[in-house]
């Protein structure tokens, strides 16, 4: 069917072209290429030819059986949980304090700025700064603990696996609780004030209000935080790589550091690194899909309304323009 006048719809396609082409070239193609490499014998620096393995899933089998990869998965999840639980609890506590209408806390703006600050600093800097802070025998942490009389002699924190893992989890916690808190506070401020008024009239305490109104209404935001944090945590690279290079003795090796080491150091096993990437991709895809399903419904209802309005206006305007163009 040929329409009279200007067909504006084609501009929708034209304006999306740069995005689509860039996405196809720089993200989709590398993803497909990674997938192919995962099934081949491709390794060694400077080579460009490869062939498919006879045992097509050979790389995947090797990676899944690789003790370092298993350790790295355990470390990645372990350090993520160790940072996420205290992070979300502290963020919730701060949210309760900052949104309590009866007992207003002053200086919230200042606290938010300071709590969030570590998040924008280069992770490479933070990793090496903490490495310096925990130096043995004379780093600031050792000095501080001895000055305060907590320890008699210096302790080499960086040689202890559990402590190293703890430090990395702490860095993540320290970098992210401010972000989580700001998101939760802004979510709490978006809750219908009538709910709070009603609860006040009913004589609810601050605690009851927080647990019965604030938390249930923050459910979606909490889930959003959970999944974005999980995806970020599963890709943790800069800090474990530069803090202690995955050590001591693979104690802080994450799956991203494992992939990097497979591909870009030593034997340049691009095929195994690609297989490991795809395994991580699968894990992350499952997590994202869960988020997508949970978020889509809620978002839809609100956005659909806006869109319908927009659609209507669009049709009206196109008609009008066509009329005027005649």
């Amino acid at each position: 069917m040929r329409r009279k006048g200007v067909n504006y719809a084609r501009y929708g396609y034209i304006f999306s072209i740069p995005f689509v082409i860039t996405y196809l070239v720089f993200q989709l193609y590398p993803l497909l290429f990674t997938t192919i490499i995962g099934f081949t014998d491709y390794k060694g620096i400077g080579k460009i030819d490869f062939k498919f393995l006879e045992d097509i899933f050979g790389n995947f089998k090797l990676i899944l059986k690789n003790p370092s990869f298993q350790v790295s998965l355990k470390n990645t999840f372990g350090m993520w949980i160790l940072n996420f639980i205290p992070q979300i609890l502290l963020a919730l506590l701060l949210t309760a304090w900052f949104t309590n209408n009866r007992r207003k806390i002053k200086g919230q703006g200042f606290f938010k700025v300071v709590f969030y600050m570590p998040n924008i600093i280069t992770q490479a800097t933070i990793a090496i700064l903490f490495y310096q802070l925990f130096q043995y025998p004379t780093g600031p942490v050792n000095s501080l603990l001895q000055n305060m009389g907590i320890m008699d002699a210096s302790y080499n924190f960086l040689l202890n696996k559990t402590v190293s893992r703890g430090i990395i989890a702490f860095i993540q916690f320290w970098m992210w609780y401010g972000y989580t808190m700001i998101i939760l506070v802004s979510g709490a401020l978006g809750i219908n004030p009538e709910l709070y008024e009603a609860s006040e009239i009913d004589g609810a305490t601050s605690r009851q209000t927080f647990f019965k109104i604030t938390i249930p209404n923050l459910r979606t935001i909490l889930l959003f935080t959970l999944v974005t944090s999980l995806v970020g945590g599963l890709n943790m690279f800069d800090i474990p790589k530069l803090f202690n290079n995955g050590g001591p003795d693979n104690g802080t090796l994450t799956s991203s550091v494992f992939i990097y080491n497979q591909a870009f150091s030593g034997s340049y096993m691009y095929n195994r690194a690609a297989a490991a990437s795809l395994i991580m991709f699968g894990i992350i895809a499952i997590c994202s899909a869960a988020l997508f399903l949970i978020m889509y419904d809620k978002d839809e209802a609100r956005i659909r309304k806006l869109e319908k309005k927009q659609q209507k206006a669009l049709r009206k305007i196109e008609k009008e323009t066509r009329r005027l163009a005649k």
Partner: protein
Amino acid sequence: MRHEVTIPQKLYKIFVYVACISLAILSILPFYIMFVNATRGTYEIQSNAISLIPSKYLGSNYAVFDGKSFSPVIGFVNSMIISIGATALTAYFSSLTAYALVAYNWKLRQPFFAFILAVMMVPAQLTSIGFYQFMYRIKWTNSFLPLILPAIAAPTVVFFMRQYLLGTLSLDIVNSGRIDGAGEFHIFNRIVIPIMKPAIATQAIFAFVASWNNYFMPSILLTNREKYTMPIMISQLKGDIYKTEYGSVYLGLALTVLPLFVVYFSLSKYIIAGVALGGVKE
């Protein structure tokens, strides 16, 4: 109301303020120690690594960098080029894509938006093997292009821009532009971009910081010292040359933090508001 009385108002407030101030100190202290130690000599740091008072070795700490692998000026310039390029591309093309999603009624609009939502969470890191091999084949390693051009397609930013446009763009304005005979592209550049300024500013700050802090991709692609970005320069500070130069390492770290502090504390209002926006997008 009965429960409220059990914790006296005053005690509650003291507790909250003490906790918040302690957390604030926890945020600042590592950086404070870093700045102070940047001015202290290695001997001073070795005898007591913690001090609240600056010393006088700033100059000699800086002199250590001369001719070694850590060159903050090169790193700064390279990171600037990449970050400004990437930020400009992200800001402009994400706005354009979002405009296409909001202002026009095309068949693939809904599927395209669903696609953007679906790939929002895919981390670029996982495709790094293919990306590196691709760049190696077209001889783009040690080039800034693979760190700048992909910024044209930023799904998360498109998502935010779209939400913003849905709430603010009045199609009557677009239409009056059409009646005046302006082309679609002209309307976008002259009318829509000014409307989107607040959203562009917020997203640009985050895009810039993300690009500035990126370590993984540059460290794979850039092997030529002259091309190193700031985070790669930082990683050089862990090298053996600096093993005993404690003061210089702190100074190097401080130099990398300083520009970020300037940006952050002058724009903190917008940054915090931008972060808060991220949560409400739910």
